[in-house]
């Protein structure tokens, strides 16, 4: 028994009392894969402003975190990739949006470390680039590293596949991505899943995110939009085992 109920009836209810202007939110997802679309929608509705969001991407124009760009609720992004999001690039280049570029692995580790009580770590990533500017450099065994800080977010919003009633979560395929490190770095973590199953029905050996990291839980329908639909034809695929990335 966990002693308290983590299950909320809706995304709005799950975010009640945890949103405030100017807060730092860590969001899971990579591109549009595994993004907490219901919680993003609820933040849009709540109208919380001046947000700093740590997320690998910022959705696309009009979907995912892109909605919060359109509504001008985001003051600053901590991201590795702007990519094909035209509004993200436009707001950044015009100076409307602050953007702290983090290498993808550094961002993931900053979240992981923050959640693990590690306030900083040294990495080779970014040495000799603009990323290293103003950061402490340290040599270990003849190689130069820079100091990066762990992230502790006021709120983590993540998306899982299934959770039990105590918040143990499993993810599906590459939708796990940033959801695990983002969840861990949140002082409060709200997780949306496709299905909440009875406690005891998930294999304890298969849990990807133990319930200790998850404070609030909702179940809902997900659009799960595909960014780049790439396929192969059934007809021409007689060559067999060609791998395509």
């Amino acid at each position: 028994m966990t002693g308290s109920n983590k299950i909320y009836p809706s995304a709005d209810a799950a975010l009640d009392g945890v949103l405030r202007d100017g807060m730092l939110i860590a969001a899971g997802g990579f591109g549009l894969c595994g993004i907490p679309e219901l919680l993003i929608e609820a933040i849009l509705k709540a109208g919380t402003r001046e947000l700093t969001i740590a997320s690998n991407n910022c959705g696309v124009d009009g979907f995912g975190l892109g909605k919060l760009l359109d509504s001008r609720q985001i003051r600053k992004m901590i991201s590795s990739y702007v990519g094909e999001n035209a509004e993200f690039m436009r707001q950044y280049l015009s100076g409307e949006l602050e953007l702290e570029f983090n290498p993808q692995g550094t961002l993931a580790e900053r979240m992981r470390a923050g959640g693990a009580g590690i306030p900083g770590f040294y990495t080779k990533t970014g040495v000799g680039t603009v990323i290293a500017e103003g950061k402490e450099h340290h040599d270990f065994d003849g190689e130069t590293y820079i100091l990066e800080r762990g992230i502790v977010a006021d709120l983590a919003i993540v998306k899982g596949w299934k959770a039990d009633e105590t918040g143990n979560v499993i993810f599906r395929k590459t939708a796990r991505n940033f959801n695990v490190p983002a969840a861990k770095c949140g002082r409060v973590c709200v997780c949306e899943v496709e299905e909440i199953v009875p406690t005891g029905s998930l294999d304890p050996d298969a849990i990807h995110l133990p319930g200790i990291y998850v404070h609030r839980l909702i179940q809902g329908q997900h659009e799960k939009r595909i960014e780049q639909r790439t396929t192969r034809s059934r007809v021409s695929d007689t060559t067999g085992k060609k791998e395509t990335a």
Partner: protein
Amino acid sequence: MAAETKGWDRNRMAARAAQELQDGWYVNLGIGIPTLVANYIPEGVHVTLQSENGMLGIGPFPYEGEEDPDLINAGKQTVTELPQTAYFDSAESFAMIRGGKIAMAILGAMEVAENGDLANWMIPGKLVKGMGGAMDLVAGVGRVVVVMDHTSKHGESKVLKSCTLPLTGQAVVNRIITNLGVLDVVPGGLKIVELADGVSEDELRAATEATILG
């Protein structure tokens, strides 16, 4: 440039890059031409492709109607899994990259310099792409191979004495494969390894701003 009639096209560049792969390797392929390398892996060479969004063992594109929104590569394209596939989170993914477990990364580039500096993530004031996982990859993997066009659309060399764009990594590139040939980064400059079909050494040198030794 006469890239149409002379030298290698995108697919030939990818095929040449595939010759760099060794049996048993774990490899990360970047977006663009590097992605095509997977189509040319030589017979008998078994490599496991890593996707930095959390997958080892990338399979082919799915058949139409079998696309899974939960299964994409780092280029956000729908892919499939293989019998040996493993999934993991982003922190784990970059632990194996940073930790030197990936033998080789094959990446695209905007500019490369003769000391191995690489620029491939932004053009200040114009194009902001972001570095994604490229900075982590070049800092962590065993060997970095760059595949790119030798010159810009305007005919300017992209193989330079020093990069003009913000760097992705300092002195990180080992080998450069372009439409004109193959060059290695060695002390003091670049060394020609191979010329593309129909390309003379003089033509390669003329298209290269960087120092070519010998």
